[in-house]
């Protein structure tokens, strides 16, 4: 480090050359990091601070003045039936999509890993939805789910089963959206599990067998599942976060309906903030949304700390 005698050009040339090499290095580092730092402040830190601040006001877009209302927005949220419905629906959606997509992905990953032929075909087939435009594919699902002309109900009809009005009835809409959610996210989880499975050393399975793990279930329980621990934890966190952020399918297909049966968190925030322009109230909702994300990340760190690392 001491012989940092290289003549610096460009960025560093604009500052005086005085100081020790350490000071020069720190100055260059500052210059390199400055654009990123500035943008983080402008587009992340300030807006988050503004959202928290706006959550305490009755600011509405289009009105010049606003006043500080303390916790009034939060009190209103507490009684807001739509918001509660929306939180509940988001929880139900995440409660379905997360476990189903994780276990489906894990099962498929193990089948693909064990199978010799068609590996890349299967991986491609299951991964394709991840690379597809969700708004577009939601439109296709709308056709598949169509109560009278849709292929799903036509297929059910050939077996003599009367198909439900998938996206049109408040009793089924959330489940139909969950099916789309699972379809869309399995591939992502699958690819991560495949990477995790390939990283497990073969000898561990041999060793487990020597130790008496005869059945496939024993090998899964003693080797695969613990070794996949970090992958599973990560996949779980990201799956929950992604399902809490569900928006595209709701906006495209149901607009929260019928009868608010598919009203979810981000859609409610979108409606309040950008359609009704009640920015203050929507900011309070956003703070709740952020708090949920913070809690989820915190839980992940806690579990991660406790987890035994085998790698």
């Amino acid at each position, binding site marked *: 480090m001491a012989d*940092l005698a*290289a003549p*610096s*050009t460009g*960025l560093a040339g604009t500052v005086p050359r005085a100081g020790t090499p350490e000071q020069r290095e720190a100055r*260059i*580092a500052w210059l*390199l*990091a400055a*654009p*990123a*730092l500035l*943008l*983080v402040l402008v*587009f*992340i*830190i300030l807006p*988050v601070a*503004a959202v928290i601040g706006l959550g305490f006001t009755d600011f509405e*877009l289009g009105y010049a003045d606003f006043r500080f209302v303390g916790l009034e927005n939060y009190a209103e949220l507490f009684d807001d039936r739509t918001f509660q419905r929306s939180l509940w629906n988001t929880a139900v959606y995440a409660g379905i999509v997360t476990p189903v997509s994780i276990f489906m992905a894990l099962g*498929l990953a193990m089948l693909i890993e*064990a*199978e*010799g*032929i068609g590996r890349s*075909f299967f991986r491609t*087939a299951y*991964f*394709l939805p991840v*690379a*597809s*435009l*969700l*708004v*577009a594919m939601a*439109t*296709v699902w709308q056709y*598949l789910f*169509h109560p009278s*002309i*849709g292929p799903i109900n*036509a297929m059910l009809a*050939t077996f003599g089963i009367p198909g439900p009005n998938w996206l049109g009835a408040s009793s089924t809409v959330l489940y139909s959206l969950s099916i789309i959610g699972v*379809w869309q996210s*399995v591939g992502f989880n699958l*690819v*991560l599990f495949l*990477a995790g499975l390939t990283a497990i050393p073969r000898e561990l399975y041999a060793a487990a067998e020597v130790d008496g793990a005869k059945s496939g279930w024993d090998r899964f329980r003693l080797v695969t599942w613990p070794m996949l621990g970090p*992958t599973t934890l990560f996949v779980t966190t*990201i799956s929950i976060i992604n399902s809490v952020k569900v*928006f595209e399918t709701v*906006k*495209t297909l149901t607009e929260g309906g019928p009868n608010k049966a598919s009203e979810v968190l981000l859609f409610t925030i*979108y409606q309040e*903030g*950008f359609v009704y322009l009640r*920015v203050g109230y929507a900011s309070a909702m*956003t703070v709740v949304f*952020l708090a949920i*994300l913070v809690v989820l990340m915190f839980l992940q760190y806690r579990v991660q700390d406790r987890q035994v690392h085998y790698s």
Partner: protein
Amino acid sequence: MTSASFTPGRVARLSILGLGALVFLAPYIFMVSTAGKAQSDIFTSSLSLIPQQWFYVQNFAKALSRVSMGRLLMNGVVVCALILVFQVVIAIPCAYAMAKLKFRAARALMVLVMLGLLVPIHATALPLYVAFDRAGALNSYVALVAPFTISVFGIFLFLQFFRAMPDDLIHAARLDGMSEPGIIARVIVPNAWPAVTAFSIFSVVAHWNDLYWPLIVVSNQAYATPPLGLLYFRAAEAGDDYGALMAATLIITFPLVAAFLLAQKRFVEGITMTGLKG
């Protein structure tokens, strides 16, 4: 396990995988099939995959006439390309400074990055929207691109990658008289190519698909991105003209799916790498 013998267990395994793949691909199969069907055909025989009358030309013509698909795809390309270039050009020097240079703010920066990872656009959208509205900058490429010029995830990913690079490489370059920006451009970036590719795929997939932010700042077809354009098309297309709708869907989905099929190994590597590091 890779031998050619088909044991019952293996047949079961292949059937499950095959059936699953068929279910996952079914939406694409029906999309392609329905895009070629006439209205009457759609209403009478939804389970036959081959159209009775070949209606592709009519449906595609309809899709192309209602919303200018070329414009949408162009907007998508421009917006994603601008976002990616800014993200990479801004994140790499910052990550390099944090990984390889000594300065006191590095720890504070790390805290900012970790906090930033928690905050999605959905959380910052309200104040940003108010600000863009005040600045009269709604309905512009600036509004679509600006909030995404900084990717803390990019900084994080590059940081991980740069830390693993040997310091000797950089020392040697300094002894050769290279400036720090020169080192970044000629030593770091060429060696970080896998990370750059992985991040590019992640970024393009994310922003090509994003609906939330474009929906908020764009109310005008001229700046609509593909997902937003498809929403407009759905609104313009009254009722159940699924033939035209599927044709439009096909056009809009095609570019990214084609890119994925052509470079799927890179895609999967990229998603695995960005996924596991994130």
